Structures are given as structure tokens and as C-alpha cells.
């Protein structure tokens, strides 16, 4: 297991210590708990707070999106493990400025149960809490069972747009509405080439043959749609785009934002080779591209692989996605 680390049991805490040391002006922890992170500085009075949370090992997910025009706080779990309800509650209390708090997180059992617990506890402390659960991986459940779908890289779009909306001092209901609108209009599918290693486990939790790939595999190694020989980049994108486009469906005349996400070990060079084909297909389908995000937005440590997400835009979403944003892991100037 070739990882830069000291004690595997300290992996997450030392990582957070490094993050806080590197970005002291931008991030802080609360409740004397490294795992409870919030945006450093003054709370904007009347701004809805946005919290997220989830397992570690997915940087820049989840804590990397705490920043201006993005999120206000994040409860950080162990590698691939949910943070506790108590930690979520601490974050909630720290970021509420009276306008309520929106939880945005991915559709995973552990996270849901803990955020449910945290929401119950927050209500007892008179904090208004609403929840939006992102799940857009078309490979993880068939159409008609969207509620069962895993949340993967597409959650970035939910953060970006809800963050911009909250920044405009919109109400909790309004921020929740755009977050749900994004969820309804984003679809993702991925492909994995290699597993990754959880530091405390020390060996890959699944294996995949030397010349194999798995289309549709989840970011923790959840099974996908098809395991088979590694295909050419264009063939892989053909398969992925076919499923994504048919699902919403995305149609001629639509305008989209495209996210090509690397899972960890896959170089940017290859992501752009993938995007090349995505763009060709969209062009052929008469779907226009408003803007692109290509890089690592949701990873599984050193897993090799990639995912493609499409977000169908309308004027409201275009306005919000174009807004400036700034965190230690993601910066965008006004488009």
C-alpha cells in the first residue's frame, strides 16, 4: 500500500490538520472537533447556511466546497464512513445565522440516517433544517427508481448553484428549491479501472482484472452495469452518453453544463480525451454546452476512472452557475 501517511488510524485527522494549517483564513473547526469544519470569518446575517457531510477519501468532496458562494460547513467522516449525527449538529449550530440550514448530501444509508438524526436534534434547538439528498448515478438504479440512486460527482452542481442562491440571501425554501431543481436535471455515469485502498484496511476492497474496466461502478466500488475488457475512450463515452442522454432525457436544443470528473489516478490528459468525444456526441445531438468542468471534483483516493455528468440548464441555473466562487479547492471567476 503505497500511501504517504503516518499512522493509518490518524489518516483523516492528520489530513484535516494539514488542510487547516494550509488554509487558516478560509477554514476553521468548531466544537473542538477536527471533523466539524466551517467557513472561517463572519456569518452573513440572514444567509441560509448550507452544510454537507460524508466520508473522507473523496477530496475535494465534501469539505473542499466550503467557501464563498459555496457551502458553509461540513461534517467529516472516516474514510468512506459517515460522520456522526452529533458532528453534523455541531456544524449546523455553528453556521446557522437565523435563516435556517440546508443539508445537501449524497444518497448513502449511513449519511441519511445520521443527517436524519441531526435534523431531529437541530429542530429541538430551534434551528430550521431542510434536506436535499443528491442521487444522480444512472447506473445505480433504473429510471423510475431515481430515489435509490447513488450521489456521485454531480453533487458539485448542487453545491455550486445552491451556494450562489444562498449568497443572494434567498430564503431556505428558495435555496432548497434550486438545489432540488439541480438534482432533477443532473445525471452522471462513471467507469472504474482500478480499486483503491482504505488506509485502515490496507488492501483493495475489490479487484478488477489487468485489462478490465467496470462501467457504472460507484465511487466506493459498488457494482456497475457491466464488467468487461477495457474499451477505447470513444467507445466508453458512447456507452456512457447513451445512458445519460436517454435518462432525463436530454434533447435537441437543450443547453448543458458538463462535468468530466477524474476518480483519482486518472490524468487530466485522459479526461480531455474523454471530453473530446462527449462534445462530439452533444454536437451531433444538437445539445449546446454552456460551460465545462474537467478535473477532479469527487474522487476515491487513488482509484483510476472517470465519470461524466450533465446538468440541463435554464436561465435561472445559468445565472447561478456563472457566479464567482472561491474555496481552497475550487475557484471560479464570474463567467
Amino acid at each position, binding site marked *: 500500500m503505497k500511501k504517504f501517511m503516518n499512522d493509518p488510524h490518524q489518516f483523516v485527522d492528520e489530513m484535516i490538520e494539514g488542510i487547516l494549517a494550509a488554509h487558516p483564513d478560509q477554514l476553521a473547526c468548531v466544537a473542538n472537533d477536527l471533523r466539524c469544519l466551517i467557513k472561517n470569518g463572519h456569518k452573513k446575517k440572514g444567509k441560509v447556511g448550507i452544510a454537507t457531510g460524508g466520508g473522507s477519501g473523496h477530496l475535494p468532496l465534501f469539505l473542499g466546497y466550503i467557501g464563498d458562494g459555496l457551502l458553509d460547513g461540513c461534517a467529516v467522516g472516516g474514510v468512506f*464512513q459517515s460522520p456522526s449525527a452529533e458532528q453534523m449538529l455541531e456544524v449546523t449550530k455553528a453556521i446557522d445565522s437565523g435563516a435556517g440550514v440546508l443539508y445537501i448530501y449524497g444518497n448513502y444509508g449511513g449519511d441519511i440516517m445520521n443527517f436524519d438524526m441531526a435534523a431531529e436534534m437541530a429542530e429541538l434547538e430551534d434551528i430550521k433544517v431542510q434536506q436535499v439528498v443528491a442521487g444522480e448515478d444512472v447506473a445505480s438504479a433504473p429510471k423510475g427508481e431515481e430515489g435509490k440512486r447513488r450521489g456521485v460527482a454531480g453533487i458539485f452542481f448542487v453545491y455550486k448553484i445552491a451556494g450562489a442562491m444562498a449568497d443572494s440571501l434567498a430564503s431556505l425554501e428558495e435555496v432548497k428549491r434550486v438545489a432540488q431543481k439541480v438534482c432533477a436535471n443532473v445525471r452522471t455515469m462513471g467507469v472504474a479501472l482500478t480499486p483503491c485502498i482504505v488506509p485502515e484496511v490496507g488492501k483493495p476492497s475489490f479487484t478488477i482484472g489487468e485489462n478490465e474496466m467496470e462501467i457504472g461502478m460507484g465511487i466506493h466500488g459498488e457494482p456497475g452495469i457491466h464488467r468487461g475488457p477495457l474499451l477505447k475512450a470513444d467507445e466508453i463515452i458512447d456507452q456512457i452518453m447513451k445512458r445519460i442522454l436517454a435518462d432525463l432525457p436530454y434533447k435537441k436544443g437543450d443547453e448543458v453544463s458538463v462535468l468530466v470528473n477524474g476518480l483519482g489516478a486518472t490524468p487530466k490528459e485522459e479526461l480531455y480525451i474523454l471530453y473530446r468525444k462527449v462534445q462530439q456526441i452533444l454536437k451531433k445531438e444538437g445539445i449546446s454546452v454552456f460551460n465545462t468542468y474537467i478535473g477532479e471534483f469527487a474522487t476515491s483516493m487513488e482509484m483510476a476512472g472517470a465519470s461524466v455528468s450533465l446538468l440541463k440548464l435554464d436561465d435561472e441555473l445559468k445565472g447561478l452557475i456563472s457566479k464567482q466562487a472561491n474555496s481552497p479547492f475550487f475557484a471560479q471567476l464570474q463567467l
Partner: protein
Amino acid sequence: MTQLNVIDVRAIIRNLKIKMDEKRDYLIELDGAMGDGDLGITMSKAFTAANEEAERSEEILPGKLLIKLGMAMAKAAPSTMGTLMATGFMRGGKAIGDTEALGTGELAGFMDAFVNGIMERGKSKPGNKTIIDVLYPAAQSLLEAKRNKKPLKQGMEEAYEAAHQGMENSRQMKAQHGRAAYYQDGSIGKQDAGATVGLLFIEVFYEYCR
């Protein structure tokens, strides 16, 4: 053994910790087959935390102690199973109330509240290939033993058999919750990792009451 007092509860927790440490790699492997492979780690963590809390706490009422253990587990291991276990301990402890010693009836009440708590938190029910398919029949068996006024030893023995049977039955079920659900029909025939935890849990109680 006809009744469990707070000292016995502490001993059982200790045995649970030892059992989960022993089965760590086995659970990792089972969870790795249809999940993320962390179950051995989280269960070991959860019961280590519970054991530490049991040793630290000076609580003399079994019910109150069990609630505290649940809180410690929730903090230490907020995974699906950690959270469900924690919920089970908290609800089960609450059900016991201020009783100082647990016979068949009290233990039946504990297990019943335990599994109901899990079902509520996980929005799940028997037949979905989860830990519930082991704990639910065990709790039902204890309730039956209570009705029939069976002694603790015999009640736990029957509960363990029921749990075992539940675990076997669950093999042929199709997973509906958690990561295993992604495997759909592929989960049929496989042993559920969480159900295994449930069986280990009942086994420790059974071995202690023997």
C-alpha cells in the same frame, strides 16, 4: 444464569468487543463482497468505544448504561451498522427502564425495542436481507419464551437458534438496503454482512447465559 445485572451487562459488552475484534477480518471480507468492506473496522471500533464507556461509567442501572453505550457507539462508528447498533442500544436501554436485573421478560423487551429501533431508523423490515432478519426472529423467540415463562438460559438458547435460522433464511433474500442493494439479484445466495453481525451479537448473549 437466571438474571443479568449491571455487572453481567458490562461482561457481555466486554465479550462483544472481544468477539468483534476476533471477527474483524471476516466481517471485512463479507462486507467487501457486497459493500465497502469496512464493517469489521466499524464494529470493532463501536464495541471498543462501548466497552471503554462501560468501564468508565459508574452507572448502576442496566438500562441507563445501555443508553450511554449507544451514544458512545454513535459517536465512535457512525457507519450504517454503527448507527443502527447505537439506535438499538439506546431504544433497548430505554425499554428496560429502571429495572436492576434482567430476566427473560426484560431481555425480550430489550431485544424487541432494539430491533424496532433499527427498523425505524433504517426504514426497513424483515425480509430485506439485513441484520433485521436475524434480530427480529431472535426477539420474537424471546417474547414467546417470556409468554411461556421460560428461564433465561433456555430463552436465549432458543433465541440463538432462531437467529441462526434467520441468518440461513436471509441468504436467499434479495438485498433492498445499503450498498448490497446495488447487486440486486446478484445478492441472492450470498451471506449478508450485517446479518452476520446480528448473529454474533445474539451469540455473545447466548454464550454468556449458558
